[in-house]
């Protein structure tokens, strides 16, 4: 345990500070944005402190002094601290973007800040909670605030997308809750650590694990359960799309990983691991092909998320492998971080293009007004990270994954990863080529529509996230040293 005083209380503050931010930003309506921003900055500081504290060992805090099995425990190791830190970092940059995205004082803006604070509360709860039912409540807060954020976009399409997202999410939560009920039926405890000791390989555990995983897969949008994702992520306002794609999916994915490889490890069998891997590979190919066929930029970026989620699951067979698992785990955390930065940057850049051009139909972007080079540069760097070219974070993730696949002798995975890279190159360059090839743009005439201008803050936030994806590639060794792959998989 660390020497620093009051350390486990960090866990409580990481959940209560964003919650306080949400309440305060509702209370002071005019200054809501600033109270929310204060909470975001505070959360970033706390996340850094947590990352430092977990280097010396795991933290555990029993809420109200009630120990498990009766009380609810909060728990953090280096893996959860990394997730909290990347969420805080990407979230803070997206908040900066939102400051100039939403019109000051509008109803949309006043709803955005409390909802985004609640979303962050839910994410931090998911990463820190050590109690399966508390996780269920976290999941519900997450999906309710995420759905409400999608409805901030006007129009019928966005409302329908939000409804679809909500219903899919509710069904996922209830499957998870049924799993929790079965576990409680069998072992009369809700604590993750106690369950890890108690559970074996019985039929009840298997059924509970299957139900929980299927429910969470629906929320994580693994192919073929991704049907709700493209309309919701493409239809939401730009900062919301960035939050949903970069962060929300990672929350539920984190939970799948914890349950599968930690808490219910004995019930998870090799066939299931292989099935998740195969579905991941299918997601990579299907998502990429759909991204190539997409006619709108935001739709393209949303389908690219379906493909990138596929990589996380394609790693599952490697994570189950005895010798390849440590590299595979490094690769997984790198995929999560690189995708959070790159996809955030890409959605923010797409939002800038949508505002300036007035539409995001890819074929017509050639002749449209585009934002300045800063946004296009951000789009290009983020795209390079998604393809997995050096020197970006995406490259490190794929390199580690290939290394692990060679180690395990999984040649089929190598083929899928390389093919996925090629397909990603096809959809990224399709957009980048159009944005950078301005030869067909004629000189502005009197009939040309007035050019919409955007706040430079929006362009720079997109670039900052893209540069973070680049920095992940350049600083791979220190970043990997921050967390201990063996912590999760004993």
């Amino acid at each position, binding site marked *: 345990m660390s020497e620093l005083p009051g350390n486990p209380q960090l866990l409580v503050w990481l959940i209560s500070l964003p919650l306080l931010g949400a309440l305060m930003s509702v209370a002071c309506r005019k200054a809501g944005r600033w109270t929310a921003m204060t909470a975001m900055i505070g959360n970033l500081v706390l996340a850094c402190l947590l990352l430092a504290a977990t280097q010396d060992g795991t933290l555990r805090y029993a809420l109200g002094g009630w120990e498990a099995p*009766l009380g609810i425990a909060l728990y953090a190791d280096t893996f959860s601290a990394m997730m909290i830190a990347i969420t805080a970092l990407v979230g803070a940059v997206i908040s900066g973007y939102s400051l100039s995205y939403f019109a000051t004082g509008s109803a949309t803006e006043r709803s955005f800040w409390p909802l985004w604070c609640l979303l962050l509360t839910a994410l931090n709860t998911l990463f820190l909670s050590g109690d399966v*039912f508390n996780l*269920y*409540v976290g999941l*519900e807060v997450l999906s*309710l605030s995420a*759905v*409400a954020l999608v*409805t901030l976009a006007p*129009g*019928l399409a966005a*409302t*329908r997308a*939000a*409804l679809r997202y*909500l*219903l899919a999410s*509710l*069904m996922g939560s*209830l499957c998870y*809750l*049924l799993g929790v*009920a*079965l576990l*409680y*039926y069998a072992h*009369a405890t*809700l604590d993750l650590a106690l369950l890890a000791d108690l559970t074996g390989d019985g039929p009840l555990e298997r059924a509970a694990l299957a139900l929980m995983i299927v429910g969470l897969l629906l929320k994580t949008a693994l192919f073929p359960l991704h049907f709700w994702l493209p309309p919701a992520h493409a239809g939401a306002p730009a900062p919301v799309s960035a939050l949903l794609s970069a962060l929300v999916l990672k929350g539920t994915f984190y939970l799948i990983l914890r349950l599968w490889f930690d808490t219910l490890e004995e019930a998870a069998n090799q066939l299931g691991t292989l099935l998740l891997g195969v579905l991941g590979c299918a997601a990579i190919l299907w998502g990429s092909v759909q991204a190539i066929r997409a006619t709108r930029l935001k739709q393209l970026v949303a389908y690219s998320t379906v493909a990138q989620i596929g990589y996380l699951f394609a790693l599952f067979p490697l994570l189950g492998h005895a010798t390849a698992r440590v590299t595979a785990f490094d690769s997984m955390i790198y995929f999560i971080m690189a995708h959070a930065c790159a996809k955030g940057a890409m959605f923010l850049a797409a939002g800038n293009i949508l505002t300036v051009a007035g539409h995001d139909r890819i074929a017509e972007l050639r002749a449209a007004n585009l934002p300045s080079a800063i946004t296009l540069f951000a789009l290009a760097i983020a795209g390079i990270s998604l393809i997995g070219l050096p020197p970006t974070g995406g490259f490190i993730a794929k390199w580690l994954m290939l290394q692990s696949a060679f180690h395990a002798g999984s040649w089929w995975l190598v083929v899928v990863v390389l093919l996925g890279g090629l397909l990603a190159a096809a959809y990224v360059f399709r957009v980048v080529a159009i944005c950078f090839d301005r030869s067909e743009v004629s000189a502005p005439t009197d009939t040309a529509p007035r050019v919409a201008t955007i706040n430079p803050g929006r362009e720079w936030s997109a670039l900052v996230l893209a540069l973070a994806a680049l920095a992940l590639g350049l600083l791979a060794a220190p970043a990997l040293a921050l967390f201990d792959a063996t912590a999760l998989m004993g």
Partner: protein
Amino acid sequence: MSTALLFGLCGIVLFVLGLYFALTTTEMLRRILAINIMGNGVFMLLIAAAYQHDVSGLPNTDPVPHALVLTGIVVAVSATALALKLVCRAHELAAEQREEGDG
């Protein structure tokens, strides 16, 4: 014991019925109702789990699942409210669009 098992099995049957209708029906209101039935199935199973952990044979039941069900009901009510509100809004927007199309 057999009562708890009966309740538990009924809960699972309710869940499966709700799941079936939530997946097959296309009408949103019915789908929301079906999801609520799924939820009720889970709550029934949880209550049965409270019965299960009766140690001494006396009718003393485990209070934890009751707390869970209460929390679950609160969550279900708020989620249903949000879903209903979204259905209403989609309905209004669709009507507006139809009017614009006619006019």
